[in-house]
């Protein structure tokens, strides 16, 4: 029996094992929504399409499965753009489905027409405009394949209205033929042997682990590599959780707001093993002075990342988990030397600290969240100081427990991403650590969380400023606070108006009880922590500076 394009899309999503989609209907995606009405697919109606994209992204990061978001043509599709770009920069598997005007109306400036494949060209791994219902099932199969394999990323499928309506026989393809897409997964044997030799000769090795370790599920292999080589391990923001931060060899995050131990270790090491990381400018600081004494081994699934920003001595293109498994099998157990002692002494001498003066400090709140959740929660963040404190003062021990917009730095990401994460991992406590600026960018999703009773806790570190920008103005612009003082609503009343629980905390003693109450409530809660206004996220590497020259902390 022939099925409509809309029915084919639903069947295809089910074939892909999709159990939740986030979206917002509209004119040109109506046929799809009509078919959805009869299906068992769980759809979450967000309050803004950007929320759908971030929720799908958060779902994907928390579960490792592709996130799916849906929007209508024109403004619906363009509202997804920031969310798609966010997913693209952090290599998140996502499939975005957008309605489009009927094929005959394309290119005629029709009502709610936007060239969304053109718009998303540079921010998707690939995109499709389907113009024949007969191509639909194959296209969706390819979209999921491309989104989830190799270096993952978002794929957009644009669906003209008539393609959703037209009928054809449904057969989901078993296999895929993409001549131009064959990701390399096995590392080159010769290069792996070179790496083994180089590791054997190293006196002061450091492992620099990025989001690729999380994505390929290589935490156990990374752990083994660290213990075999006794290498101190630093992670990027995206790599947080790839290696337990409670481990003796962990030196925490590196880069602009990294630990001194991490930045010193990288600056003094004689071998840097980069695993699933991309030498981002927020990590390297001044590139000429990054790991100046080190030979560099770079393991990454994306060949274009190798040699993009720094010169590499041993490149290994392949899936991180496969490469590390192979590499580990060839390594001997190393013995401890002065190097490990030296790194431990840096850790002891330069812990992450803040001044406890009796007022409510944002860092203290993060520490309390860690204690109350025993480090077992999923933490989502917004962007700015809240994000850096969340990265610094909570000790992550498992992958996919830290969900944050690293590459694009998208304010407003954390809350909808937390909703997506909670949908994907309902057994986990999910907390969004927010600023009073960021939370106002997607606050409307409170209605979504309340309607579906998705019990996410939002911890607003409310300092009445766009804190990170204010910090830069303080340090680099002579305290000229140009438009960084920001007001907001009464967040407690706002939460209550949406039907969520609102709690205000002004005293350090109230922090723990408030967190416990919020988690126990098992419904959406917004906690308004009124924190010290001009606290800084430290230590810090001034932009363009060498990472061992840090200020503060």
């Amino acid at each position, binding site marked *: 029996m022939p099925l409509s394009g809309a029915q084919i899309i639903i069947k295809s999503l089910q074939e892909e094992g999709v159990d939740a989609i986030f979206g917002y209907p509209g004119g040109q995606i109506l046929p799809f929504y009509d078919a959805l009405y009869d299906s068992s697919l769980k759809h979450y109606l967000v309050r803004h399409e950007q929320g759908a994209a971030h929720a799908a992204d958060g779902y994907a990061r928390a579960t490792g499965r592709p996130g799916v978001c849906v929007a209508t043509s024109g403004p619906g599709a363009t509202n997804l753009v920031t969310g798609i770009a966010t997913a693209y920069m952090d290599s998140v598997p996502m499939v975005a489905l957008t309605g489009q005007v009927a094929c005959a109306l394309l290119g005629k400036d029709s009502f709610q027409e936007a060239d969304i494949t053109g718009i998303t*060209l540079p921010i998707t*791994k690939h995109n499709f405009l389907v113009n024949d219902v007969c191509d639909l099932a194959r296209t969706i199969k390819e979209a999921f394949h491309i989104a989830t394999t190799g270096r993952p990323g978002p794929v957009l499928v644009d669906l003209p209205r008539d393609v959703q309506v037209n009928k054809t026989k449904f057969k989901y393809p078993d296999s895929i033929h993409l001549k131009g897409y064959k990701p390399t997964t096995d590392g080159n044997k010769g290069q792996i042997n070179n790496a083994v030799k180089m590791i054997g000769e190293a006196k002061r090795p450091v492992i620099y682990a990025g989001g690729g370790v999380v994505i390929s599920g290589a935490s156990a292999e990374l752990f083994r590599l660290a213990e075999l080589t006794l290498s101190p391990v630093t992670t990027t923001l995206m790599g947080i959780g790839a290696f337990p931060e409670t481990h003796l060899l962990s030196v925490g995050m590196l880069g602009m707001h990294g630990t001194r131990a991490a930045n010193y270790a990288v600056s003094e090491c004689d071998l840097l093993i980069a695993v699933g990381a991309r030498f981002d400018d927020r990590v390297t600081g001044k590139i000429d002075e990054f790991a100046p004494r080190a030979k560099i081994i770079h393991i990454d699934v994306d060949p274009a990342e190798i*040699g993009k920003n720094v010169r590499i001595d041993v490149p290994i293109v392949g899936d991180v988990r496969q490469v590390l498994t192979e590499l580990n099998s060839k390594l001997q157990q190393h013995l401890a030397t002065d190097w490990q002692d030296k790194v431990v002494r840096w850790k002891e001498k330069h812990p992450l600290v803040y001044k406890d003066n009796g007022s409510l400090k944002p860092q203290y709140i993060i520490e309390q969240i860690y204690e109350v959740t025993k480090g077992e929660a999923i933490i989502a963040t917004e962007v700015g100081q809240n994000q850096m404190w969340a990265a610094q003062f909570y000790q992550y021990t498992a992958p996919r427990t830290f969900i944050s917009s690293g590459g694009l730095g998208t304010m407003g990401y954390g809350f909808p991403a937390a909703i997506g994460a909670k949908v994907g991992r309902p057994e986990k406590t999910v907390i969004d650590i927010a600023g009073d600026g960021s939370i106002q960018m997607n606050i409307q999703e409170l209605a979504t969380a309340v309607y579906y009773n998705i019990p996410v806790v939002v911890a607003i570190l409310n300092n009445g400023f766009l804190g990170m920008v204010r910090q830069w103005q303080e340090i680099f612009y002579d305290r000229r606070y140009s438009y960084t003082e920001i007001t907001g609503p009464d967040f407690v009343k706002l939460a209550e108006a949406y039907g969520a629980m609102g709690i205000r905390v002004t005293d350090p003693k109230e922090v723990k009880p408030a967190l416990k109450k919020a988690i126990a409530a098992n419904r959406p809660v917004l906690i308004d922590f009124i924190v010290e206004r001009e606290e800084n996220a430290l230590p810090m590497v001034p932009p363009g500076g060498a990472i061992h020259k840090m200020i503060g902390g």
Partner: protein
Amino acid sequence: MRHILAVLVENNPGVLTRVAGLFSRRGYNIDSLSVGRTESPHISRMTIVVEGDDLVLEQVTKQLHKLIDVIKINDITSEQYVDRELVLIKVGADPSVRGEIIQIVDIFRARIVDIGRRSLIIECTGDEGKINAVMESLKPFGIKELVRTGKIAMLRGQKATSLNENREDD
């Protein structure tokens, strides 16, 4: 240094935009780009002349490979190849100078493909040096209009940039 890339791509709508967009947003300089179908209707071939050192070329190639529609890339710069460009030139040609122009056309083995009352259109194929020389020689007569295709190139001998191993797919 200038490199010549022979690139096979899926003949999908938007593939040219994908390639051109990649070059512009990553700041690579295209000298010329020409594109057309191959012997297989599903596959087009681009000849891209790009300026850059080895590191830039490595990035260009790797980034191009990331495009799903790009099937194969060959940097043929250091190999033996034939390259050609086609140019059409409209020159001012009063009867008094026509003889001179026709002589130049003969020397370059070009062709006159249109004659107007006061102008001629000249067609010329050749490598870049020859095309430039023709243009220089015709400049004194007044070039009214000029269009060139950009370089196309092919490896000499047995070597090829093709998908023969995948032929059965097509």
